[in-house]
């Protein structure tokens, strides 16, 4: 893409936001039908409250950013796996296990200096999720079992494990009637860092990991191998890459990203592990974020903030209107998944075809890509060259 002129660059940019834009607009339209059907509030009023609650003022944007942080991590998790040809539906469980492992480290060792305790807690969170991913990868590669059902089953098992730990070994002795852990030690917590805002240093960690995601996949050999295996497994095998190892490693990292998200949510926002810590389906919402962001680092950042706004705004919408359920936001998220995955239906046919066949470095036409089940969802033009 080096030799493109300004006009072409602009066209590329427009094209990369065309599908997300259409998907969002259509989803909001259908969402307004749902609002009309299930409440007495006009959709415009409802969406107005949502917008105000998401981006209306500094406090709203603050809340949006806080909600965006876990979504960015689960979206990176889905994106990384998808780029390597795997569909990770297990971010939900990996998120929980990351939170669980982080809690164990975060409450167990008082009087540690933060410089040791905090990194140890973050590492535990990463490993908690990564080990779940590793298990999935090993079962997939060793037994040929589909990762789809395995990851989903592991989600339910993780939920029961959390319930066991907050009712048993990790239960707070000071409040023994509630199924919750003791509060995290101050040395294992993340704090706010911008005067006047509640958003915590997890935001910086999220930005660092967005960069690492980019750096790993596009600037390292291991990341390159992973993308090749994801794009065309037989080509990867022909080039001597170990597909099994790449799959296991990708799931390990994807699990770790989701786990880190769970860890940060506990040590920065919730303060202790509870059954109610996981009411918001961060794992599944992360899929929508990843797809809307086209599995790209910057895309994930922007769509993460957008979806953070959607959840933050939905709460305000429910409070202000009193009869529009915040679950309408889930409906809109689901519709966005459908319309992004099915974005071919919005393609402006002639132009799109001729452009993509005019030879990008990835060299795949739209039909080629749709045929190849294991190819990443990103259209060929979004690739910066494998």
């Amino acid at each position: 893409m080096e030799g493109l002129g300004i006009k072409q660059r602009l066209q590329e940019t427009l094209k990369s936001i065309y599908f997300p834009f259409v998907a969002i607009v259509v989803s909001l339209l259908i969402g307004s039908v749902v609002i009309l059907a299930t409440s007495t509030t006009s959709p415009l009023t409802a969406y107005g409250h949502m917008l105000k609650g998401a981006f209306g003022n500094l406090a709203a944007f603050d809340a949006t950013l806080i909600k965006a942080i876990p979504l960015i991590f689960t979206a990176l998790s889905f994106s990384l796996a998808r780029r390597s040809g795997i569909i990770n539906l297990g971010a939900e469980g990996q998120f929980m296990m990351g939170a669980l492992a982080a809690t164990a480290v975060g409450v167990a060792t008082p009087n540690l200096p933060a410089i040791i305790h905090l990194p140890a807690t973050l590492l535990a969170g990463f490993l908690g999720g990564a080990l779940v991913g590793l298990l999935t990868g090993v079962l997939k590669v060793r037994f040929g079992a589909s990762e789809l059902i395995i990851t989903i089953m592991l989600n339910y098992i993780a939920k029961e494990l959390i319930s066991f730990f907050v009712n048993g070994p990790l239960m707070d002795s000071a409040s023994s009637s509630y199924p919750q852990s003791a509060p995290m030690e101050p040395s294992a917590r993340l704090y706010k860092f911008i005067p006047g805002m509640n958003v915590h240093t997890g935001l910086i960690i999220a930005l660092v990991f967005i960069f690492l995601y980019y750096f790993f996949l596009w600037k390292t050999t291991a990341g390159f191998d992973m993308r090749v295996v994801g794009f065309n497994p037989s080509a990867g095998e022909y080039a001597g890459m170990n597909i099994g190892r790449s799959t296991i490693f990708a799931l390990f990292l994807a699990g770790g990203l989701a786990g880190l998200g769970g860890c940060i949510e506990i040590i920065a926002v919730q303060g202790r592990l509870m059954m109610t810590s996981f009411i918001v389906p961060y794992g599944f919402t992360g899929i929508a974020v990843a797809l809307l962001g086209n599995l790209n680092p910057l895309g994930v950042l922007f769509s993460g903030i957008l979806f953070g706004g959607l959840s933050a705004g939905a709460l305000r919408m429910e409070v202000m209107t009193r009869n529009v359920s915040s679950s309408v936001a889930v409906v809109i998220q689901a519709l966005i998944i459908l319309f992004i995955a099915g974005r071919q239906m919005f393609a402006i046919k002639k132009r799109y075809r001729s452009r993509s066949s005019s030879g990008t470095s990835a060299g795949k036409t739209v039909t080629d890509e749709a045929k190849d089940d294991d190819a990443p969802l990103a259209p060929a033009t979004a690739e910066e060259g494998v």
Partner: protein
Amino acid sequence: MNEVVSFFSTTLRLATPTLLAALGIVFSERAGVVNIGTEGMMLVGALSGVIGSYVTGNVWLGTLIAIVVTVLFAAIFGFFTVVVKADQTVIGTGMNLLASGLTITVNRALFGASTSPPEIDKFVIAPIPGLSKIPVIGPIFFNHHILVYLAFLLVPIAHFVMFRTNVGLKVRSVGENPKACDTVGIRVGMTRFLSILYSGILAGIAGSFVSMGMLSFFTEGMIAGGGFIALAAVVFGNYTPRGVMFSSLVFGASNALMYRLQALATNVPSQFPLMIPYVITIVSLCIVSRRSNKPLGSGKPYIKE
């Protein structure tokens, strides 16, 4: 003895929603469609059945409404996967999230967050006259909801249709080699679409059975993985109706075992028995995945050249 009888009877009852849904999925899977969205379809069936029964006052009319609504919902899945040719797994995941959001929204709008749900007409036990009086055998096999009998009667019918009729042959070949089918004039897209609608019918019935047979009202997210377990039952049952019956019984038994352990357990924390069905699902997938009847064209949209 009583314990054993009640264990087996519970196994049959708990296997029923899995079996119903899986008998639908086995056809759509054979046609080459991976239907991750079954979970959402069952959820939609569970709620629309309850609404139908609440409005009409009759559980069977409620089930009929559940079937209609779930088939419409399945048509959305069919539209995106067959017509638009989008990635089946991602669309399935989207459908599950959509079902979750829609059922919560509609349920709250209609019934509010009230603590005591309204009374609805629900499925009742229908002992088969005479047979249900046989000792041991009677209470295990012939003292159930009508849907339990129907689910098991459907197994030989499904087997016959799949392996002895033209329809079954078409479905299987469309999954195995869509291109060849297209060449000889079998309509690949239409066959797949109809098999998705068929799996919608059975998912709707299965969902109704969960909300009106096993329980007596709708609760948010009440399917709790039942659709995924049905999907696993198809893989574990090696894509045949008979195999699906066997694996549904295994999952039903693991659920029954969970309830027994929960009732008996003195010091086993209740969460571990609850994990049993999920663990068994994973183990069973690992056992069978290497030697499977999975169709060659599974999961790939068919695009004419």
